[in-house]
């Protein structure tokens, strides 16, 4: 069910035209209900989005461009981008492995693990960052090991990558598990019968069928990673120029009353995420039709 909510692909199979939906109630009752829903969505969701667009462009589009080309903004953009890239590489590999194990393998505690996968959806990002501080911070559990190896995790990029990994963990798995379940094992068995090794079977038979799911899962992971704020703020500390992501920059710019910078960066991040998520959804539906 959680995957149903987060993954737009499995929703809305609209009724075929022949079977047009027909609600109950008089024409006026219907009109009122439709009006209430449209007004609610317009007020709650569209209103704030439009306000942000208008406010960002209040001083003209040149001000937006100037704000977005500040060195701090550019460096925080790079930071966000690189963290998201590392995260999709790690989850691309391990997410596939975990999904395969959860669907195809049988061992004690599998059901329990399957339930655990959803936990990052519900854990507060601040708590995620704090967990990692308890592990890798100055007085953290792993502090002696890290100090002797001279590795910095807290208040540095590795910690921010770890935090983003935790937050985005469910997306790949929840996307791939239903696909793997739907595939069944007939083709894999056929390949094995013909003498393919386990790895060959996976590489030549299973993986190609998983490819659309992997691309979709990675896009969602990427979008979520771009927008992460609380967890990377707590573990990274938001040090200007060193551990500042784009979301952290927006937060600081608001605090410093650099409103145009904050609004422009927020608009950029919001638009990019929307285009990413709706775009991949559109591509996928076009591929299905």
């Amino acid at each position, binding site marked *: 069910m959680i995957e149903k909510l987060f993954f737009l692909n499995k929703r809305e199979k609209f009724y075929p035209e022949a079977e047009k939906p027909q609600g109950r109630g008089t024409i006026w009752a219907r009109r009122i209900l439709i009006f209430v829903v449209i007004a609610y969505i317009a007020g709650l969701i569209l209103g704030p989005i439009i306000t942000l667009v208008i406010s960002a462009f209040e001083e003209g589009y040149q001000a937006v461009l100037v704000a977005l080309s500040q060195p701090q903004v550019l460096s925080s953009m790079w930071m966000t981008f690189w963290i998201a890239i590392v995260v999709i590489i790690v989850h691309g590999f391990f997410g596939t492995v975990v999904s395969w194990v959860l669907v195809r393998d049988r061992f004690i505690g599998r059901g329990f693990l399957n339930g655990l996968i959803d936990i990052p959806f519900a854990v507060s990002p601040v708590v995620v960052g704090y*967990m990692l501080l308890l592990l890798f911070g100055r007085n953290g559990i792993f502090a002696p090991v890290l100090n002797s190896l001279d590795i910095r995790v807290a208040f540095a990029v590795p910690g921010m990558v770890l935090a983003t990994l935790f937050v985005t963990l469910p997306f790949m798995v929840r996307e791939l598990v239903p696909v793997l379940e739907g595939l069944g094992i007939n083709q894999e068995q056929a390949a094995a019968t013909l003498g393919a090794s386990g790895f060959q079977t996976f590489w030549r038979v299973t993986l190609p069928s998983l490819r659309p799911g992997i691309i979709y899962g990675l896009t969602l992971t990427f979008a979520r990673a771009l927008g992460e704020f609380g967890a990377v703020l707590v573990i990274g500390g938001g040090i200007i120029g060193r551990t500042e992501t784009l979301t952290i920059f927006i937060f600081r710019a608001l605090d410093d009353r650099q409103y145009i910078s904050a609004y422009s960066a927020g608009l950029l991040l919001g638009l990019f995420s929307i285009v990413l998520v709706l775009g991949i959804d559109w591509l996928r539906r076009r591929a299905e039709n």
Partner: protein
Amino acid sequence: MSLTSINQQVKPVKSTPWGRYSIRSLALTYLIVFLIIPILVIFQDGLKEGLSGLWYQITLPAALHSLKLTLWTSAMMTVINTFMGTLTAYVMVRYVFPGKNLLNAIIDLPLAIPTLVTGVMLVIMFGPQEALGSWFNSNLGISIIFAPPGIILALLFITFPFIVRSVQPVLLEMDRAQEDAAATLGASSWSIFWNITRPYLTLPIASGALLSFARAIGEFGAIVIVAGNIPLLSQTAAVYVYGQVESENRLGASAVSLVMMAIAFSSIIFVNYLQKKSKRVG
């Protein structure tokens, strides 16, 4: 013919147990390192001072107020969202009107927009210096930003898709024969909805509502912008933990984190239970 008989005779060659074990251990290591150890450390640290130490930290005025504020704003959001989400799903599935596809796409936008950006949007719209915000303040005496109404608004924005997307598929797949029968027998449309349609929707509504509640408890990005960080007034639990981490008060941070984690855990377990139950019913 001959192919099928071969298939039946030859048992599929299984990959070697060693290959299987190594993949299994790879997956388990990944989950243990990235998921289980971080979760366990919160429980270990939160319970370090014993239950009485935990209780002391939670009942400090600022901590207790932040937890209560988080719970009641999340509950309030859940009530509104349950009503509006169900209504939206019903209208989207059952009624035909222009712009429906567009509206359907807009419902997903909150899932894509980073919550920090959501916070920024709401501050611009309802901030005390802004047109709408000052109108609310002077005409209705309500301040939205830096106050609980702003928190509820932000949570409503973020969790809006949850209930809609949970109820919509069930409504789509529902058999309409019973409703038609009731209509033929002269039931009013409200009575049809309440007595026939609603029972089918109870489980999906409940799991969507619970999920949005769990999500709301932990929300940080939008709330820290919209509500600020005013102890005993607009400081939620997540913002409280952030403050304690910043001021290096480990005990306070761990205690409130533990409570939030416990709520998250029980919600996820309950949602899984509801979903299993609705799979059996469906």
